[in-house]
């Protein structure tokens, strides 16, 4: 049996039953990383000693007869903007290398570890999360496991790749404008960007405080749901964490879609989608028996406002780096950081004030709908180094255009499950869909995702590396 192909649920159950040990699962994951990472470049660090210690503690717990936590012995890895105790938090940069090592794990790593998961490493990303491609100049591009000449998407490219390459069944990432959903789409894995403010961001290197979300990737929907449930917690120490209680999705996962009002986003989400992107949404809609077309309010303006806020906050955050260490910054994003730092305050304030109007319009939309479907990316993974994309007759900058369809959604703070799909027009290259629900209703998006998984519409594919 290849342990590295198993889902997190199968791993946890297998360890619980004694079919294999946590130490064996860990070794299988480390072997897989060793065998494949030269080809995909997902990992920037491995945390072998602590992983061995944690796996041994799980095996000892089982031997003692105690009941095991839900992710006992499941290997996972994190985007390298998460603090890992004793490690420097790089956030994809080299300028952070001289920072002090983190004194403790990020909050979500603590939650995962408390649930029994085993942290094995940190993952490649776009520098400071400003990108959708993970063509990191310092650490090398992350490569798509389905075609290593192509991008993995970003900025959580290593997180998508590590799951798609069967290195680990679960990873954590961040998503400001699409940085979980884009790599999930391009790598063909499950992804979750929860509601803005749902999961604590404490102990992660920020990008845009007013839009940053954390979430995860998984090789199974049940694994994604389990991971999400164990990560939930109020956190008074993160001013951006708005939850007061835990709202698990696992109990309602199997409830089906009967009674749910589901629609397909048209307009902006069709106009900026390739034939392949439109095909996967049509396939999902057909499987669900969905015919309704829905217009998302002010999608273009929402994207613009998110773009302006991102540039301003990102530029301001890295002002000192721009002043003193600009030559050490990522060439693919440094000019955008500098442009953002120079934007007039009036643009930023207008964008933030518009966000209030936008939120109310999006919430009004969800008075009539429970779940909406849209492509996650306009196209499947471009070849590494692609500068321009043709989408519906428009020539667009490739690195920005990959987030066209995700940016308006996250700006409203809505939760999204990114589901892996495989357009018939592609040569085994995935292109995922966004399953979008109203703020704080992750449960509804998960139910629709489960239905699509059950129907065989959304699934992973094995890769040969």
């Amino acid at each position, binding site marked *: 049996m290849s342990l590295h192909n198993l889902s997190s649920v199968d791993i946890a159950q297998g360890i619980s039953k004694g079919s294999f040990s946590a130490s064996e699962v860990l070794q299988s994951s480390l072997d897989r990383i060793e065998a494949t990472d030269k080809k995909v470049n997902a990992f920037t660090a491995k945390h072998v000693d602590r992983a061995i210690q944690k796996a041994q503690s799980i095996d000892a717990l089982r031997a003692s007869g105690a009941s095991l936590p839900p992710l006992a012995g499941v290997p996972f890895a994190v985007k390298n903007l998460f603090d890992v105790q004793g490690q420097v938090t790089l956030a994809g940069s080299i300028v952070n290398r001289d920072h002090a090592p983190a004194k403790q794990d990020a909050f979500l790593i603590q939650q995962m570890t408390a649930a029994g998961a085993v942290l094995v490493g940190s993952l490649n990303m776009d520098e400071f999360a400003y990108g959708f491609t993970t063509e990191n100049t310092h650490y090398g591009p992350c490569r798509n496991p389905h075609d290593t000449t192509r991008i993995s998407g970003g900025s959580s490219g290593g997180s998508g790749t590590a799951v798609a390459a069967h290195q680990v069944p679960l990873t954590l990432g961040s998503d400001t404008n699409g940085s979980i959903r884009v790599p999930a789409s391009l790598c063909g894995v499950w992804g979750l960007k929860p509601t803005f403010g749902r999961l604590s961001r404490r102990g992660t290197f920020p990008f845009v*405080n*007013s839009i940053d979300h954390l979430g995860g990737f998984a090789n199974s929907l049940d694994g994604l749901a389990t991971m999400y449930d164990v990560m939930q917690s109020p956190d008074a120490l993160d*001013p*951006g964490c708005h939850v007061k209680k835990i709202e698990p999705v696992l109990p309602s996962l199997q409830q089906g879609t009967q009674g749910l009002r589901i629609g397909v986003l048209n307009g902006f989400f069709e106009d900026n989608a390739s034939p392949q992107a439109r095909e996967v949404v049509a396939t999902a809609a057909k499987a669900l028996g969905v015919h309704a077309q829905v217009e998302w309010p002010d999608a*273009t*303006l929402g994207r*613009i*406002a998110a*773009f*302006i806020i991102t*540039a301003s906050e990102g530029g301001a955050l890295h*002002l000192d780096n*721009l*002043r003193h260490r*600009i030559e050490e910054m990522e060439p693919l994003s440094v*000019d*955008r950081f*500098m*442009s*953002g*730092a*120079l*934007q007039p305050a009036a*643009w930023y*304030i*207008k*964008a*933030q*004030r*518009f*966000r*209030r*109007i936008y*939120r109310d319009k999006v919430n009004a939309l969800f008075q009539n709908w429970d779940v909406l479907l849209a492509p996650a990316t306009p196209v499947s993974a471009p070849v590494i180094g692609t500068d321009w994309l043709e989408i519906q007759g428009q020539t667009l900058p490739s690195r920005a255009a990959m987030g066209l369809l995700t940016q308006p959604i996250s700006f409203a703070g809505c939760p999204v499950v990114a589901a892996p799909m495989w357009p018939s027009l592609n040569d085994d290259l995935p292109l995922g869909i966004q399953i979008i629900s109203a703020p704080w209703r992750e449960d509804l998006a998960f139910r629709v995702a489960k239905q699509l998984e059950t129907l065989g519409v959304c699934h992973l594919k094995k890769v040969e590396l």
Partner: protein
Amino acid sequence: MTQEQALEFIRNNAVILGLPTDKTRLTRVASHFIRTEAMAQLLDQVDCPADLEIAEIYCPKQIAP
């Protein structure tokens, strides 16, 4: 906004913020800035009433009794 106007704005503000001012870089930055300015114009057309606050993240902490 012309490329020259953008370049002048970028250069002057780069000086104020203590950012590099070499022309090659400023020219590249100006290209990004012009694209953003075109987007900002669209957003500027949205009517925002005076009492519309910005989206909040800051929250005052309650003083412990």
